[in-house]
C-alpha cells in the first residue's frame, strides 16, 4: 500500500519525502483547496520546486484542487488545474463536477483522483466518476466500514485511497455546512472548517468556554485541557442529556486496521494534516513507514503510538469498525 502524506509548506514536503512518503499531497495558496489556512500551502513557484524535489527522490506529488468553484469565478479553478498539470503533478485531486469535467477534457492524459470532498461512498457513484472523467483513484469518505470498502474495491475499476491518521470528519465530507451555519465560512466554498478567525475562549466562574461564531462549543473545568472548538467534536445539550453528541474530541488512528485495509484491497493510505508542522509530519510519516514495513513481515501495530497524539486527544478507528455507527 502506498503512503500518501500531507504537506502544507515546502519544508513539510521535504520532511515527508525524507521520512519515507510514497506520495505527497498539497494545494495552492488560495480558495481552490480544502485546507485554505493562513500561511499555508504553495505558490506556483514553490509547487514547481517541490515537485522537482519529490521526483528526484522518486516520490509523487498529488495536487488538491478540491473546493467547489465560486459561481462566476471558474477561471481561478481552471488556472489551478492548468498550473498544477504544467508543474508536473502526478495527479490532481478534484471534487467539483466543474473541475473534473474541465480537467478531463483539457488534460486528457493527466491522472485524476476523486477527492474525499466529492463524497463518493459506493461502487455506483465511483462508476460514474470513472465513466464520466476517467478517474483513476477515489479517496473514500470517513463514514465507511472495512466491509463496505472491500465491496467498493471489488466492484470498482478504480484505485481506492483511505484516511488512516489525523483529523476525523464524522459527517460525510463535502456535504457538511455546520461550520458555514455558525461562521459563514464553509469547507466546500472557502476550504475551511471551524476557522480560527471565529474562535474565542472566555473565562467565567472558573470555567473556560470555547466558542465558534458566538456559539459555545465546549466548556472546561480547571483540570481539563481546553481543546479547539471543532464544531462536530463539541459538547452540547439535548433532552437526553449533555455531552459529545456527535463525536468525542478524538482523531483517527487506524494503524490497527492496516491488515484489514490491505486485505480489502486498498491501494493507498492517507495521512490527514496539511495544517500541521514539519516535525509532526516527519514523525507520523516515519511511524507509518515503520508499521508498513512491519506489516510486510507479518507484524501488526495496535496504534501509531505517536507523541503527536498527546494533545488531550485520543485515537479512534472511527467508522472502519461497524460498531461506530
Amino acid at each position: 500500500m502506498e503512503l500518501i502524506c500531507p504537506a502544507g509548506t515546502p519544508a513539510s514536503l521535504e520532511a515527508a519525502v525524507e521520512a519515507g512518503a510514497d506520495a505527497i499531497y498539497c494545494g495552492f495558496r488560495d480558495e481552490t483547496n480544502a485546507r485554505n489556512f493562513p500561511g499555508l500551502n504553495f505558490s506556483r513557484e514553490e509547487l514547481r520546486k517541490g515537485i522537482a524535489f519529490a521526483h528526484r527522490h522518486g516520490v509523487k506529488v498529488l495536487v488538491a484542487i478540491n473546493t467547489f468553484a465560486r459561481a462566476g469565478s471558474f477561471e481561478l479553478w481552471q488556472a489551478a488545474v492548468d498550473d498544477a498539470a504544467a508543474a508536473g503533478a502526478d495527479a490532481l485531486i478534484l471534487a467539483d463536477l466543474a473541475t473534473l469535467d474541465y480537467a478531463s477534457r483539457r488534460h486528457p492524459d493527466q491522472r485524476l483522483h476523486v477527492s474525499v470532498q466529492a463524497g463518493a461512498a459506493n461502487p455506483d457513484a465511483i462508476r460514474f466518476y470513472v465513466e464520466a472523467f476517467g478517474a483513476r483513484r477515489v479517496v473514500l469518505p470517513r463514514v465507511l466500514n472495512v466491509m463496505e470498502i472491500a465491496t467498493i474495491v471489488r466492484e470498482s475499476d478504480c484505485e481506492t485511497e483511505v484516511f488512516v491518521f489525523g483529523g476525523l470528519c464524522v459527517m460525510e465530507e463535502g456535504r457538511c455546512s455546520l461550520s458555514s451555519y455558525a461562521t459563514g465560512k464553509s469547507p466546500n466554498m472557502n476550504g475551511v472548517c471551524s476557522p480560527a478567525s471565529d474562535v474565542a475562549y472566555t473565562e467565567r466562574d472558573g470555567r473556560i468556554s470555547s466558542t465558534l461564531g458566538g456559539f459555545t462549543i465546549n466548556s472546561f473545568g480547571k483540570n481539563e485541557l481546553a481543546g479547539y472548538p471543532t464544531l462536530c467534536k463539541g459538547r452540547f445539550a439535548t433532552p437526553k442529556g449533555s455531552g459529545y453528541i456527535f463525536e468525542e474530541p478524538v482523531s483517527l488512528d487506524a494503524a490497527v486496521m492496516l491488515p484489514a485495509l490491505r486485505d480489502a484491497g486498498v491501494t493507498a493510505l492517507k495521512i490527514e494534516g496539511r495544517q500541521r508542522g514539519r516535525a509532526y509530519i516527519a514523525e507520523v510519516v516515519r511511524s507509518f513507514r515503520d508499521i508498513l514495513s512491519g506489516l510486510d513481515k507479518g507484524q501488526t501495530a495496535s496504534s501509531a503510538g505517536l507523541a503527536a497524539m498527546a494533545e488531550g486527544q485520543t485515537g479512534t478507528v472511527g467508522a472502519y469498525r461497524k460498531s461506530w455507527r
Partner: protein
Amino acid sequence: MQLTLGPVLYHWSPEQWRDFHYRIADEAPVDTVVIGEAVCSKRAPFKQDHVPDVVERLQAAGKRVLHASLILVSLPRERRQTRALMEAANEAEVEINDLTCLASLGGRPFAAGPFVNVYNEVTAGFLAGRGATRICLPPELPLTAAATIAAALPEVAIELFAFGRAPLAISARCYHARAHKATKDNCRFVCELDPDGMPVKTLDGDGFLSVNGVQTLAHGCTSLLRDIPAIRRAGLASLRLSPQVCDMVAVARLFRDVADERLDAEEAERRLSEIYPDVPLANGFLHGAAGHVRMGTGPGSLGELR
C-alpha cells in the same frame, strides 16, 4: 415564482405522512411535491404502502410529483433502493440527492435536489447536459451565486431552499440512536419521538442545531419571505418549502401571497412566526453570512442587488 414542497425529512408515522400529503394535495398552493425518504434507508419501508395513494391524490390535484433519492448511499440495500428508483424513472420523475444516481439514469431527465453539490454555473451546466431540468441549490449558497447560475441556464428551473430548518450534514452514524445509547443497527426508530427534530442546544442553553437520525439540521428556520423581490430579480424560478411540524398549508399560502405581491413580506414573516412559533427565523446563507443570522432588506443588502 413556483413553489415546491420538499420531502418530509423526519420519521413521521406512515398515517401522519399520508394524511399530511392528502391535505397538501387538497389545500396547499404548491406546484411540485417531492416525496420519498431521503435521510435514512431504514425508514423507507414504513411509508412505502402509502406512496401510490399519495402520488395519485397529489397528481389528481394537479401537482407535479418528484421521488427523492437517498442522500448517503453506502449499504447494499441502499444501493438497491436507489437503483430501483432510477430504473422506475421512466414512469416517475426523480429528484436525485447523490451522484450515485447518475450512473443508472442513462440520460433520462431528472431534478437535482439540494444535497447535490451545485455551487456554480459550470457544474449546473454539466448536470443540465446529463438531463437535469430542475436544480434545488445547496442551502448554504448565497444569492449572488444562485443569480449567476440562473442567468447561465435559463432553460433549467433553479430553486432555493426558502422555508424550514436547513439541512446541514449527513453521516453514517445515527445521532438519535447515540443520544439514546443505541447504535444505528439497533436504533428502535427512536427518531420518531422527535417529528420536528431533536433540539441540540449549547451548554449555555442557546438553540443551535437539530438532530434527525443521521442528519443534522439548523435550529433556526430559514425564511426567505423578505428576500423574494431580490430572488425574483435574480431570475430564480422556484422556492422550496421544507416540511416542519406546523401548518404547512398556511406556510405555503404565505409564500404564494408574497410571491404574487398580495401580501407584504414583513407582515407575512410576522404571521410565519405565529404559524411556527419559538423558532428564530434565519436567512444568513442567502446573504453570504453565517446561516443562523437574520439579515434585513435595507440598502447595501440584497435589496440593492442589481
